[in-house]
């Protein structure tokens, strides 16, 4: 029996099939993963992501602490509420985790890290505080609901306290605001518009039911995975981990090289890799033949070498199989994938595959 989010009982009541995810009992779907996927692409869906770990970083030195800890630069965050996606690296440049950091004010940051990496993340965060005056506070008292889809904000706004609706609706993409005891952020993991709402755990079920009542469809982790993959977003543990750098993971854009004097953890290793040439890259694959790409299938690149599918699925929006694969740097625009002993052709594309409901490949 895994850990349960505060919304466990309502999931079961709504027909969820529960599976283990990183030690948590989580809904994988509520009947049809594909219908849930389409609901998010065309209307509005919601995900209980309360299993994710919320950590507050407070204190006068919080900014300096995070400038050293994160490969992207919190120094770029000057407007309160601004969110930033980043990797947290080890000294070798390997990815300990990927996370979102919210700048809520000077000395006031909030991180959302993955559930499955919670223990090692907390240990690392604590370990790096030595000699720095910063408070690291995990927030198990909070829950998190993501509402995603072209109609998600409009529908969800009706469920927010009336005095906060305008402020929530006026948030720009990648901005968050504290509204009463909610943190409403215009962020997500689906390639659609929407909010991620961090709220007190004891009000979470009421909010979930209110969202369901206005027609926001409960969606499981199954749809969350197909949506994020269509959106070309990496999944920690599948597409990158401690043995891969951001530069080999399609995440070079999240590494802030300037200012040069910012000595973030892993910088030297990344600089060395960049100097010597990054040997592998993460690319999108579109399977040309019938079949389904899956993680760990072998990618065969003529005259170049071999790679591996890191994430693969059937794309409900494109009605064909898509994936991410780590391949040799010299890989061109077509590869073969070994699927159960057959060589099937795949086209190399640049993610995202789908964005705001539209095919991009």
């Amino acid at each position, binding site marked *: 029996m895994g850990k349960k989010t505060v919304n466990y009982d309502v999931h079961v009541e709504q027909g969820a099939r529960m599976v283990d995810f990183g030690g948590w009992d989580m809904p994988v779907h509520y009947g049809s993963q594909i219908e849930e996927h389409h609901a998010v692409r065309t209307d509005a869906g919601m995900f209980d992501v309360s299993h994710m770990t919320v950590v507050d970083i407070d204190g006068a030195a919080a900014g300096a602490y995070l400038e050293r800890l994160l490969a992207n630069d919190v120094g770029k965050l000057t407007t309160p509420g601004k969110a930033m996606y980043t990797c947290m690296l080890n000294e070798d440049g390997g990815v300990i985790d990927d996370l979102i950091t919210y700048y809520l004010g000077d000395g006031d940051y909030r991180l959302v890290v993955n559930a499955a990496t919670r223990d090692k993340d907390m240990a690392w965060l604590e370990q790096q505080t030595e000699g720095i005056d910063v408070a690291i506070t995990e927030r198990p008292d909070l829950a998190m609901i993501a509402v995603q889809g072209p109609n998600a904000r409009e529908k969800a706004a009706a469920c927010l306290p009336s005095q906060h609706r305008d402020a929530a609706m006026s948030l720009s993409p990648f901005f968050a605001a504290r509204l009463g005891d909610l943190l409403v952020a215009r962020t997500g993991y689906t390639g659609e518009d929407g909010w991620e709402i961090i709220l007190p755990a004891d009000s979470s079920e009421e909010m979930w039911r209110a969202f369901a009542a206005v027609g926001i469809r409960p969606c499981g982790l199954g749809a969350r995975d197909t949506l994020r993959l269509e959106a070309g977003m990496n999944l920690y543990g599948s597409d990158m981990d401690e043995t891969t750098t951001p530069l080999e993971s399609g995440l070079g854009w999240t590494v802030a090289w300037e200012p040069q004097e910012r000595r973030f953890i892993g910088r030297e290793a990344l600089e060395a890799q960049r100097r010597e040439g990054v040997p592998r890259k993460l690319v999108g694959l579109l399977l040309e033949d019938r079949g389904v790409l*899956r993680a760990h299938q072998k990618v065969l690149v003529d005259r170049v070498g071999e790679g591996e599918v890191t994430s693969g699925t*059937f794309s409900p929006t494109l009605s064909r199989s898509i994936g991410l694969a780590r391949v040799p740097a010299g890989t061109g625009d077509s590869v073969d994938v070994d699927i*159960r002993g057959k060589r099937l052709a795949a086209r190399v594309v640049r993610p995202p595959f789908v964005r705001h409901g539209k095919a991009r490949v």
Partner: protein
Amino acid sequence: MSDIPGDLKFTKSHEWIREEDDGKVVVGITDHAQAALGDLVFVEPPEVGSEVAVGEACAVVESVKAASDVYSPVSGEVVEANEALADSPELVNQDPYGDGWIMRIELSDASELDRLMDANSYEATLED
């Protein structure tokens, strides 16, 4: 509650078998299996003309989240595969005992049918 027709035979691995008059059987996966797998998006059929043995993985059904083998419940020759599943794998979800059939096998040893479960026995395995 999943649907378990009384006139079929079953395996522990959730295949169903319908006997035909001419020494052939039709094979598919059960309602329980399709529900557990979720929306199917791809079916890799067995090769027509191939010989299969009892318990041999001979077809693959893939849902959005995973690929699962279909095991032959009997020995014999695959004489037909359901071609409609190439374009419409969802037939397995919608009609697992009808349009969602997977293959037709010509039995090499009809006595193997006696080792399959009837509906009551299969239902009991689902309750365990």
